């Protein structure tokens, strides 16, 4: 218990864990897009930036309450997700990936060239509204929502699209529209995460949302175990804490980080928790194999 208390009182742990929680929400959004629905997205940071800037501007200029701004940030990110999805969701695999990457870069460059966001000089003077409690309440809400989504008709349809698009379509699923919906929900979480980020850092700069940030988040999702919520949580935890733990190796830090990425993929190509169905493990522990009728679409 002492450990838990020290997290709440020690500002450094508090800071690191809050950051981790913020990125976890974004990663869970990407989990729905890439892990559950199987669609590549290499531009997730763009949606964070949309949520971050829009909520920050509302806070600064309209003085509206933080939760409203966060919601609007999420919705705006989702709107852009839909706008990007409508033309590009007909593309498959890597082509979709590279399109989202391009979109991400374009959004960043637009922010650099926009006056109201402070351009390259960044946007300062954002009040601090985010704290560890809000972040983790939202993390729990996000996890809860995603579990519900995955175990619903909607979520099953998304998993079907990941498994086999043609079969999904002949089962009556409007694949194109469902992909857009998944993209909208996933980018909504990215927008919320961006809003939290903005009100945590209190200063935004377009360079915070480059493609390396997008790939970081993708890393969280893949490394933990694609398609698995616990995997995404673990991946985010390991990879956001790793740079902190690796501080003692100083300038060799990124060298080790890069090598770790390669090694983890070679030894666990499906991610740390890939192919480990925690729900099933849990259930078999609880009821020794005689589970209830609901099975998660999570594997």
């Amino acid at each position, binding site marked *: 218990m002492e450990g838990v208390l020290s997290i709440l009182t020690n500002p450094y742990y508090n800071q690191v864990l809050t950051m981790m929680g913020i990125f976890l929400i974004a990663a869970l959004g990407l989990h729905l897009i*890439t892990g559950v629905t199987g669609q*590549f997205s290499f531009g997730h940071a763009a949606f964070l930036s949309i949520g971050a800037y829009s909520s920050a501007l509302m806070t600064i200029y309209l003085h509206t309450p933080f939760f409203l701004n966060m919601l609007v940030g999420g919705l705006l990110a989702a709107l852009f997700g839909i706008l990007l999805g409508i*033309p*590009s969701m*007909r*593309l*498959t*695999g*890597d*082509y979709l*990936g*590279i*399109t989202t*990457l*391009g*979109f991400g*870069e*374009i959004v960043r*460059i*637009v922010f*650099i*060239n926009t006056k109201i966001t402070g351009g390259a000089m960044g946007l300062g003077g954002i009040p601090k509204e985010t704290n560890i409690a809000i972040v983790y309440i939202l993390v729990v809400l996000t996890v809860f929502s995603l579990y519900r989504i995955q175990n619903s008709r909607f979520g099953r349809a998304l998993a079907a699209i990941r498994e086999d698009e*043609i079969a999904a379509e002949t089962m009556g699923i409007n694949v194109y529209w469902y992909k857009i919906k998944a993209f909208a929900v996933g980018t909504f979480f990215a927008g919320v995460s961006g809003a939290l980020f903005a009100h945590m850092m209190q200063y935004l700069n377009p360079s915070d949302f480059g*493609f390396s940030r997008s*790939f970081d988040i*993708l*890393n969280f999702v*893949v*490394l933990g175990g*694609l398609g698995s919520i616990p995997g995404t949580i673990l991946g985010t935890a390991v990879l956001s804490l790793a740079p902190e733990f690796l501080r003692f190796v100083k*300038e*060799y830090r*990124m*060298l080790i*980080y*890069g*090598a*770790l*990425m*390669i090694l983890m*993929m*070679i030894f666990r*190509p*499906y991610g740390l928790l890939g192919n480990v169905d925690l729900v099933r493990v849990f259930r078999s522990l609880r009821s020794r194999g005689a589970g209830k009728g609901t099975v998660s679409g999570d594997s």
Partner: protein
Amino acid sequence: MFFQQLVNGVTLGATYALIALGYTMVYGIIQLINFAHGEVYMIGAFVGLIMVAVYKVNFFIALLAAMAVCIPLAVLIERVAYRPLRNSTRLAPLISALGVSIFLQTLVTLIKGDPNPLGFPHVIQDTVYALGPVKFSLIQVVILIVASLLMVFLEITVKYTKIGKAMRATSEDYETANLMGINVNHVVSFTFAAGAALAAAGGVLVGMYFNSINPFMGVTVGLKSFCAAVVGGIGSIPGAMLGGLLLGIAEVFGVAAGFDTYKEAISFGLLIIILLFRPTGLLGHPIQRKV
């Protein structure tokens, strides 16, 4: 002015094309976006610099030396980071490619001592030729000649040699090529080697042309070259050349037309527009839905 900008654009495009070829060949064969390719290009540039600055060799020796280092490096990268993942999910090799990329950038930074850019000694005279109002510098001429020669050489290799035929067969159908007795591992290694040779040449040429190299130079150039490969139709060798030239010219003219603040967005904007109308790029084969 128009023709001068065109010359600038074509020169830039030729370097993109050299790098794009590596992406396109690898993708054509194992459907992998080799994100570490930009780092091979970067290391090629550094090897070239060391050769001319420390060993005082001439330009062509430096070019060959860069290739000689990058070829085994790329083959090694494939062996260590991609081959074990060939039958895994599509994202696994992508992540390990990013890992290789970070590793090599940091490694070069550590060896060099800092991430600051280095200049490139003059191995080619600053001669300027004038063709009417259009000026060509000698280095631009060298880039165009070397790039064209390499691309012609590659095209001949792929079209007429045994390994080239094996490459085409493998990219057509990996499994069948394997069953037909083609050693696909050899083919993949050869593909990485060929791509690395071109990237190394690209690194040395760009280093000389723009006079500056740094450990992170592979990132943006790599991404843009990959865009070029996709625009041209990934998997298609003429497509990569076309895409490279198109992007180079678009970028130069975009800047000249006053979109200089959006320069980095030009390549990506072009990419998205082309993909929406031709989902597999300009010269790519349309995907047949297989049921």
